[in-house]
């Protein structure tokens, strides 16, 4: 069987999991069963992964459960090729933000259908489960303006799937500037609950631009907030931003929903506050086809429940790249999901040899 055929079959199995989730059916296959075959496939067709497995003394063909799969450091996306197909077949190239050392991480895909299905299924469940066809307003650039951004791709996907606003554009960042008046006009024309998709820094810019004024959304509307500030706006605490956004849009704070995603992934994680009255703010939940496991940063073994570790993220939808990645984000498992605790605080380094963090000051993974 060729790699492409094998990949297509794996994509179909993952999409069957996603379909089952959307339709409220039991999962047709166990997570470990699919992960076993994805890991074997990547061991055979991603040369770097085969090398990593060898260095860790793991035979990818002998991995029987997800937990046994070595995780790929996200840096690998910056300095190597993380894909299981011929380069000429790549149709999408999502890139991380620029870094002071020049290289940007790139997640190549030959087919975004599984990415799209995963994003839509879980995004709809966490953000718009009870909304019929909510118009989508994006506080970000349009897809053509941000062609290599996975977040731009996801936002455009949501806008296409859920529906555009009844009047005016769907995107409100044009040539890098927030189009506040255009947004105001669109908001005022909304007849029904809407979805606003935004980065944290775009929301800060909006709050700074409108001051104490309000852009009241119809009742039942939701706002997705994602990402950090990346030096592109003043920094605001999560609580203050949530409160400010809720006030500005005239919605409940529980309807300001956090999303956590990365360029290197095909799935996203969401706060469940909008759809689950028991859900806690700051706790992100996973779809059934992805898992976040806090691991010890030195041994990469899972830490005990409730302990803080760095995030090992497993994503079955990453069929053609890396099923498991390891990030520098600190996380802790809590009932119902995981808590994001930001980057590991590095101790001040000894000596005057430049620290990687200092060199990669702008290397916070972007989407």
């Amino acid at each position, binding site marked *: 069987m060729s790699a492409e055929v094998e990949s297509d079959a794996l994509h179909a199995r993952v999409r069957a999991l996603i379909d089952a989730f959307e339709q409220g059916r039991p999962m047709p296959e166990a997570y470990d069963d699919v992960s076993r075959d994805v890991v074997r496939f990547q061991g055979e067709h991603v040369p770097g992964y085969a090398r990593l497995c060898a260095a860790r003394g793991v035979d990818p063909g002998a991995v029987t459960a997800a937990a046994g799969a070595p995780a790929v450091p996200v840096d690998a996306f910056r300095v190597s090729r*993380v894909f299981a197909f011929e380069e000429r077949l790549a149709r999408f190239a999502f890139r991380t933000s620029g870094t002071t050392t020049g290289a940007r991480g790139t997640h190549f895909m030959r087919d975004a259908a599984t990415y799209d299905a995963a994003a839509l299924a879980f995004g709809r469940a966490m953000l718009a489960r009870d909304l019929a066809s909510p118009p989508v307003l994006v506080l970000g650039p349009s897809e053509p303006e941000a062609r290599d951004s996975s977040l731009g791709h996801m936002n455009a996907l949501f806008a296409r799937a859920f529906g555009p606003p009844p009047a005016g554009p769907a995107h409100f960042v044009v040539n890098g500037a927030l189009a506040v008046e255009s947004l105001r006009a669109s908001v005022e024309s909304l007849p029904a609950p809407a979805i606003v998709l935004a980065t944290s820094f775009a929301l800060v810019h909006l709050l700074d631009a409108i001051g104490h004024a309000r852009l009241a959304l119809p009742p039942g509307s939701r706002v997705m907030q994602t990402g950090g500030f990346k030096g592109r706006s003043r920094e605001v605490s999560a609580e203050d931003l949530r409160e400010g956004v809720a006030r500005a849009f005239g919605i409940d704070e529980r309807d300001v929903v956090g999303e956590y995603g990365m360029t290197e992934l095909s799935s996203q994680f969401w706060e469940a506050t909008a759809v689950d009255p028991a859900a806690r703010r700051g706790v992100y939940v996973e779809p059934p086809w992805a898992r976040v496991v806090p691991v010890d*940063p030195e041994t990469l073994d899972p830490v005990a429940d409730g302990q803080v570790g760095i995030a090992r993220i497993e994503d079955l939808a990453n069929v053609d790249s890396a099923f498991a990645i390891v990030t520098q984000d600190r996380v802790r498992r809590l009932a119902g999901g995981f808590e994001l605790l930001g980057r590991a605080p590095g101790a001040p380094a*000894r000596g005057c040899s430049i620290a990687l963090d200092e060199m990669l000051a702008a290397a916070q993974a972007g989407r």
Partner: protein
Amino acid sequence: MTYGARVAAVRRWLEAARSVHRDRARIAEAVAASSGLTAEGVELGFSCLEQDASDEEIVALVEAAGEAERVHVILSANVFVAPLRAIALARAASSRVTVRPSPRDPVLARALVAAACDPAIAIVEEQDVAAIATGEIHVYGRDATITTVRERARAGVTVRGHGAGLGLAIVTRAADVGAAAEGLAADVVPFDQRGCLSPRVALVEGDAARAAAFAGALHERLATWAERVPRGRLDAEERREAVRWRDTMAFAGRVWAAEDHAVGLGGAGEALAVPPAGRHVLVAAVKALAEVSDAIAPIARFVVAVGTDDVRAAGSCAPAPARVSALGRMQRPPLDGPVDRRSTPSSPDRESPT
């Protein structure tokens, strides 16, 4: 202060250095505790302490120092022998010098000042930058530290920042791989690679096979060094970065790893995965020296020192401000001015606005 007096002050300072070096056993344990180096690592570090300089070098140092009414030296993150040169520069510039040692690594600065018995040099425990009214501030440390000092310094006070950096090795096609690896290992081991002169990236002219041969040879030489000079303890963050980098390199190319070091071979034409300090070296092939500039472009502004088997050939493609020396000599630059000759946005010397 006359020119002759400044030269004489530097010579007296070097006498203090020799005195401290002779009595180094008294402070070696304290240096090991504060630096994280093993006892053998401290002894090796002391071998890098400047104890002498030629007339020409001292003249160059005095000229590089300029003149100042007062100089306030703020020492922070650096290798443990760095106070020698830092205070020499300050003393060459002024007859009124205060030194605030690094709170984490104060041992050598205090020992040198005590040995010098120079009334022009005084240790201070605290240094309120905003209270300094005149003269110069020489600040050593991370860019963030330097930026903070610049922001707090009063108008009219000159701030000279000496930031962090790294070393680069260039191995030309003509080099004997084993000899070049021996030289590079001798540059990597001192201070467990935590100095701004310490090489962390080695570009090997030739094909991937030659780069791999060099990486393997370097691995062997570092293992031999580790028997004589074991690596000291790494901080938790350094250990995490080491794990991350080794796995990244295992994915991207190949890793030769041992308990006290690792050598990674990058893929041809791929971005450089700069390793963390702690005896980690990235080796990558370049087809020709003409490709060096492009290969290092993203990190060129951090390069403080270049070591090579062919100073003339490789020097022409080194970043302009970097010190270029023979492999094996990167940690022993002449005492002719600041170690770091860069004038970049990360460590510019500037006059505060008046």
